[in-house]
């Protein structure tokens, strides 16, 4: 990708990121959206923090910055894991990634096509598709972890009981009274 295209994308980072964050916040009930927008503390308002963090990384990855895949994954992980346990169906959880497309088309596409960078723009959009697939991996993994946690927990609750029962099954050990 040309340097020019990257510069153009960088110029629009702030407004795209903000618009995307707002779009994500809008997926929550109205009474909550205001709170998400206003408070910045990473522990007092973790959902907003996770969303903002992943927004910045998501944009950088789409723009074609030099990104180390594990960094992208780590940043998306927190956000996707959150969406994976909130009350959304899977498509609702992950469709938020695609909400960046209409924003890019509105904010960035006109500027880029004006200077003949349409191909570079389409490449950027394709990177968003790859990122959505990456998010899908994280999502599936999170749901599997969840299912495993349920099984493990059932086992752990009675761990000692099962061990005791197995001992009974084996009969008295040598030297022990029956």
């Amino acid at each position: 990708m040309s340097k020019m295209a990257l510069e153009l994308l960088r110029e629009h980072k702030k407004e795209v990121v903000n618009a995307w964050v707002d779009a994500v916040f809008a997926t929550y009930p109205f009474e909550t959206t205001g709170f998400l927008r206003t408070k910045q503390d990473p522990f007092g308002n973790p959902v907003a923090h996770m969303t903002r963090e992943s927004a910045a990384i998501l944009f950088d990855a789409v723009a074609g910055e030099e990104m180390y895949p594990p960094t992208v994954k780590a940043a998306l992980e927190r956000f996707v894991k959150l969406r994976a346990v909130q009350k959304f169906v899977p498509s609702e959880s992950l469709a938020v990634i695609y909400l960046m497309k209409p924003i890019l088309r509105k904010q960035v596409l006109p500027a880029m096509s004006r200077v003949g960078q349409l191909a570079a723009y389409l490449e950027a959009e394709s990177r968003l598709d790859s990122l959505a697939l990456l998010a899908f991996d994280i999502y599936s993994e999170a749901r599997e972890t969840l299912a495993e946690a349920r099984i493990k927990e059932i086992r752990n609750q009675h761990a000692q009981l099962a061990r005791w029962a197995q001992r009974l099954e084996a009969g008295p050990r040598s030297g022990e009274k029956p």
Partner: protein
Amino acid sequence: MAKLPTPQMLVASRPNFPDEPWIDTKPEFTPGSYCYPAKKETMELMHMPHPHEWDPAAEDWNLPENWEKILCDAFDDRLARHRSLKLFMDICVRCGACADKCHFFLGTNDPKNMPVLRAELLRSLYRRDYTMLGKLLGKRVGARGWDKEVVKELFSYAYQCTECRRCSLFCPYGIDTAEITAIVRELLHEVGLGTHWIMDPVKNCSFTGNHLGIQPHSFVEIVEMLADDCETITGIRPKTPFNEKGHEILFITPSGDVFADPGIYTFMGYLLLFHELDLDYTFSTYSSEGGNFGSFTSFNMAKKLNAKMYAEAERLGAKWILGGECGHMWRVINQYMDTYNGPSPSHMITPKSPITGTVFKNAASTKMVHIAEFTADLIYHNKLKLDPSRNDHIVTTFHDSCNPARAMGLLDEPRYVLKHVCNNFVEMPENTIREQTFCCGSGSGLNTEEIMELRMRAGMPRGNALRYVQQKHGVNHMACVCAIDRATLTPLANYWAPGVTVSGLHELVGNALVMKGESKRTMDLRQEDLPNVTDDEAEGEE
């Protein structure tokens, strides 16, 4: 041909914004978000009112015919009985200080999980029947009547509150939302609505003494099995005194420590510590449960289950009671036990440590001492030989369990112990610990697997803080003083901060404790290799 929805259409949760105000939004019951209902037979056995078959996901909950009258009368009765409830109904000014303090709200972003709005679900009903404005103006002043959807809503949100009381900390009026939740749950039980995860342990506790309903002989055998494990690790088999009369101390701990991983390792820590001190104590199979799921059911059920502690201390002639690491057990003891079953039996005395002579005046009324206080006192008086390097493989943080932290102010004692048994200790961010601690998301009878998804979102603020110290300081362990925490923080950590293990405080004490005549330790209480044990040394032992 129908058109495919766009991503915007897929995520739009409120297409006709503003769709409808909270008061008209109906609760949803999707799998993973509600607890399974209590069995009819269980409710019958416990003489609970109106036992019946029902399903939270069904349209009709088969409520008794005169359900509305039952609920109104029960509410009236509770208002008359608990002056605090009436006060909590009247004084809220809806300032919103509590709104963003609830871990359920932070995790779900559902406005009805703001403590103020959760309480408003009940307050709106109160307003209609008990305030002049509500009677006259109804919905315009936020008053509403009972209907079956309201009952469902109360159920949904009363079981999305862990009674952790973080919100109360920020309320300028000191409104205790946990008490409101407790009353709502009590009201729901009046029309036969309870959850399996709570009522089954209540039944088991009533009949056999502990949550799993393990018979006394089996209970003893399982504890002996753990003593065998202690012997494998230390070369010393600690004594396991049960139901013996005439000892100074009765020891009561949640039964999860006996049955569940990783609680058992904490229990082994107790066994080793008591053995090393040659403590004059006994366990009881009758009072073999510190936890009190009755406190998630009703006032009377909590009182009944709690009564066993004093009854057993009296029968066995114990002078005072030492309590293990548990959460809500300590809230019940510290805040309700005196009212429920006090005063303590006349032969009991203000607890005094037989090792250091310290008198626990803070326990003068209940006669019960928390083991973290007891051990901190031992360490303070230099009565234990400890080798913290045995815990060098962990960088630990400490999770303040809600009830010991906020209901009894147990903040510094566990940290004091932890710092003496571990060399690497890191605190989580300030607004997530001590009084402001975030709940594990699974307390108050919500630690059941069918709502794992709900637990993960409710525990997210805790998981988020844990992940932060994991990444910033390399934390790989979290200690806590609650049996529910030990069980539930394990999957929570695995989800939000994989690689972090969870244990009770006394598991780490057990690891670090240098016992008289012990064989060289090569493994920790989980029978995993200890750090700092060179092969040469290990071989030298053989």
